[in-house]
């Protein structure tokens, strides 16, 4: 006879000294966990509720400007600093961590319309309606660290006067060129007082310009003639021109997929395009109820933030048709500029009410250094929520956002309008000869023509 029974001595299964950690034994056998699916579902539900409870995205406002914030620039070389320019010609450098002004750049007479920092983070370019471009030295980061409350003011390195007012500026990712937009597109050099090159296509004002992060010589602009134009500095003229039904206010390249860019349009939508294939948008991002004023990609390239004239900031996934998040406060007015921070954890918005606002990119994210256990717990919650996101109860909780009343009403109104439009289209189609009426998808509908 061979016999053995389970026999556990207490010493083997408990800790030796009271200072030791408790011993943990695992058995992943599904049979000892009954109803694990139901338990998981309840956990997903709880995780969704917890997420809602901890969703406190607003970190703080940065006030100091005395007029509307018109443009912002982030310093690619310094995580904490952000530049902002306002309508009264004031430019400030902010320390995001302490939410204070570190340095002022006085000098512009009219509104500052464009700000850009060079990739090495040493130079700031500003331009405005006073027809000047100014170059500034960015104060070194150790100066920012010093904790004196006195704001410093800087003198411009250079000041170039040109013929027309400027609307936007952007710095090349590598190299020392920058482009200004206004009556035309001008390419400047750090050490020349007149533009190197000038492009003009049509007579309308160019309102935004962005260099491609992957290819330093490619840039995209939008103009008031409702066009998006791609330029290549190595060629003598423009590459492609795309004309849409309404104008685009701003444009942003996806930093991880530099062939794609997203344009913020007046018609409340954002359009993602592949630069090689402009006859159809890759994705239409709908949700805003008024013109989208500015757009900026997260450095991860997975999502972007938009600011709109409807007084809200929204965060969209790069390939999703609807926003993941909406941020609004009672006091925030028209949003003119938005930026994603360089570590993708914060969003900064500048609005008509002279404030810069700092938001968390993930509304319920826990700030600060996390313990490994906390990290694991967050990951687990995220995973179960993702697993049961299709179930009605979880979906409802995760999707629900409180909207300001005007936005809520505008959304409903827009829905009725689009629905009516769709119905009319359908009926027209039903009552005409088959094939004579074709419905264009929304991705193509808003494009008028593409010119090479």
């Amino acid at each position, binding site marked *: 006879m061979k*016999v053995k029974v*389970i*026999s556990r001595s207490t010493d083997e299964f408990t800790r030796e000294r009271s200072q030791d950690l408790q011993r943990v*034994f695992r*058995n992943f*056998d*599904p049979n*000892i966990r009954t109803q694990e699916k139901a*338990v998981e*579902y309840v956990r997903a539900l709880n995780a969704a509720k917890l997420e809602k409870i901890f969703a406190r995205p607003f970190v703080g406002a940065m006030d100091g400007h005395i007029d509307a914030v018109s443009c912002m620039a982030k310093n690619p070389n310094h995580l904490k600093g952000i530049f902002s320019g306002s309508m009264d010609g004031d430019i400030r450098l902010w320390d995001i961590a302490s939410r204070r002004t570190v340095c002022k750049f006085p000098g512009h007479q009219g509104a500052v319309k464009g700000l850009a920092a060079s990739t090495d983070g040493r130079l700031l370019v500003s331009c405005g309606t006073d027809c000047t471009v100014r170059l500034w030295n960015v104060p070194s980061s150790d100066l920012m660290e010093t904790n004196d409350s006195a704001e410093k003011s800087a003198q411009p390195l250079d000041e170039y006067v040109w013929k027309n007012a400027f609307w936007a500026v952007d710095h090349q990712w590598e190299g020392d060129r920058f482009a200004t937009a206004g009556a035309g597109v001008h390419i400047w050099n750090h050490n020349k007082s007149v533009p190197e090159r000038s492009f003009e296509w049509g007579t309308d004002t160019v309102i935004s310009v962005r260099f491609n992060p992957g290819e330093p010589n490619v840039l995209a602009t939008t103009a008031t003639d409702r066009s998006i134009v791609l330029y290549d500095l190595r060629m003598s003229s423009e590459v492609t021109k795309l004309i849409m039904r309404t104008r685009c206010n701003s444009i942003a390249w996806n930093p991880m997929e530099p062939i794609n860019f997203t344009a913020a349009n007046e018609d409340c939508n954002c359009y993602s395009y592949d630069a090689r294939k402009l006859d159809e948008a890759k994705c239409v991002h709908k949700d805003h109820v008024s013109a989208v004023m500015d757009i900026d990609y997260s450095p991860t390239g997975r999502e972007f933030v938009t600011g709109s004239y409807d007084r809200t900031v929204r965060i969209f996934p790069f390939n999703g048709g609807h926003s993941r998040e909406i941020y609004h406060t009672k006091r925030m007015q028209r949003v003119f500029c938005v930026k994603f921070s360089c570590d993708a954890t914060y969003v900064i918005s500048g609005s008509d009410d002279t404030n810069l606002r700092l938001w968390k990119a993930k509304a319920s994210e826990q700030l600060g250094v996390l313990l490994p256990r906390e990290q694991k717990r967050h990951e687990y919650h995220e995973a179960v929520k993702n697993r049961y996101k299709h179930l009605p109860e979880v979906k409802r909780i995760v999707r629900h956002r409180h909207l300001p009343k005007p936005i809520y009403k505008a959304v409903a109104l827009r829905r009725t309008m689009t629905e009516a439009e769709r119905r009319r289209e359908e009926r027209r189609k039903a009552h005409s000869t088959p094939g004579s009426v074709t419905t264009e998808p929304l991705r193509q509908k808003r494009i008028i023509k593409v010119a090479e």
Partner: protein
Amino acid sequence: MGVEEENGTLAKIVPSAEQQFSDELDIKIKKYLRGEGADLEALRDKKLKGQLAVREDLYGKSAKAAAKAEKWLMPTEGGYLEAEGVEKTWRIKQETIAREVDILSSRNQYDIILPDLGPYTLDFTSSGRYMTVGGRKGHLAIVDMKNMNLIKELQVRETVRDVVFLHNELFFAAAQKKYPYIYSRDGTELHCLKEHGAVLRLQFLKNHFLLASVNKFGQLHYQDVTMGEMVGNYRTGLGRTDVMQVNPFNGVLALGHSGGTVSMWKPTSSAPLLKILCHHGPVSALAFHRNGHVMATAGKEKKVKLWDLRKLDRELQELPCHAKTLDFSQKGLLACGSGSRVQILGDFSGTQNYSRYMNHSIVKGYQIGKLLFRPYEDVLGIGHSMGWSSILIPGSGEPNFDSWVANPFETSKQRREKEVRSLLDKLPPETIMLDPTKIGTVRPAKKKEKPTKHERETEMEAAVEAAKDTEFKKKTKGRNKPSKKVKKRQEIIAKARKPFLEQHMKEEEQLSRKKQRISEVELPVSLQRFARKNAST
């Protein structure tokens, strides 16, 4: 040449060992896969297909990781009893086993004789660390089974019919003469659950925090012990019974009735989920396997039947065995107790064919009332008319416990943390259903609601054709006349057609009513004040 040969033989040997290892791993992986993967071939949505393929791949990987980690995570081996030569396992006595095993285990063999307050019933906590016993004549006690300490003993001076632990050892419920009561570990009476009435049997649903009871009048009560809310109160309508068992797999409660039926209940419906006629006499005991698929029932007609709950049309096995109480162990051994004999059955072939494994007789004249395997130990607790006993059943318990599920060496701090955690994971009563894996899955596409006109017509025609072909009996005395026959046939055809026509008429009526509702034109707002409020006024 020689080197080559060596290489050749090596190549032959190595894969076989690897093969064996991978086969073992495959069996282990299967356990963690929790059923078969989804059939992705049928999907037409390419994006979804891609996403699901990634998900399935992830499941496979995690199952593999769990199977591989088993070697390191599960240090304890299970118990076993093997006969050698002409020995038979069922002839091996407890005394022989006691001589072979270590001292620590042999301490688990004992008899506590308390002749005055008997018959005893007992319950273990889910970790198997604590036991509560209840004597019919009012004796309640909690025992720490690790060091055999009597934690608390009290005399309620009332009949005690059943005792059950709540979620941990701090609380237990006792079904007394008129009402069930909840006591704390130190013997303080916390609650008297008057709504339950004179309860015969109590069960606690651990995941849902529900205390279920069946009383003298066959009423079933579910009470949430966290908030005190009465979740369900149903009359079974099948008479008095004291056979009640929760299926741990899905939380469904089974009742065995005197008519030989077993009915299954959930707290959210007043009708039983299903009723099965299991025995020709009264059902005397019920037990569920831990995997939730096998149910054992015992009838007073001296039969024990095993059922597969996924296929209930006939029993898996019928054993000629008298049982007053049944219990499944964690490893799937079945204990049947009646009179003063305990019989342990086991499924050794893996084909759900139970054969005898061990036998044990307690002192003649003692009547066994309750058998319960102690979780995570090779021990069977026996409550009988003269006290309680405990015997060793090698291979009955799960050798490896999970500290986060049930920990026999739990400290009070861990217990407090676990209580909070389990309360956060408390399941709503709606999650009790026959197939708990359905939660989170997609409901299969509904059938077409209305048959089309053509379908309905063809169906009616088929029914009419079938009616036409009916053969008539040969009648006598003028009733067999051709005219009568024709009349009769017409009647039958009309009868066959009737339900279809009625259905059609009903639909028409509904449609017309709907139309009428739409056609009632609403007056413009400016004229509404002139309209009559009511036709009569």
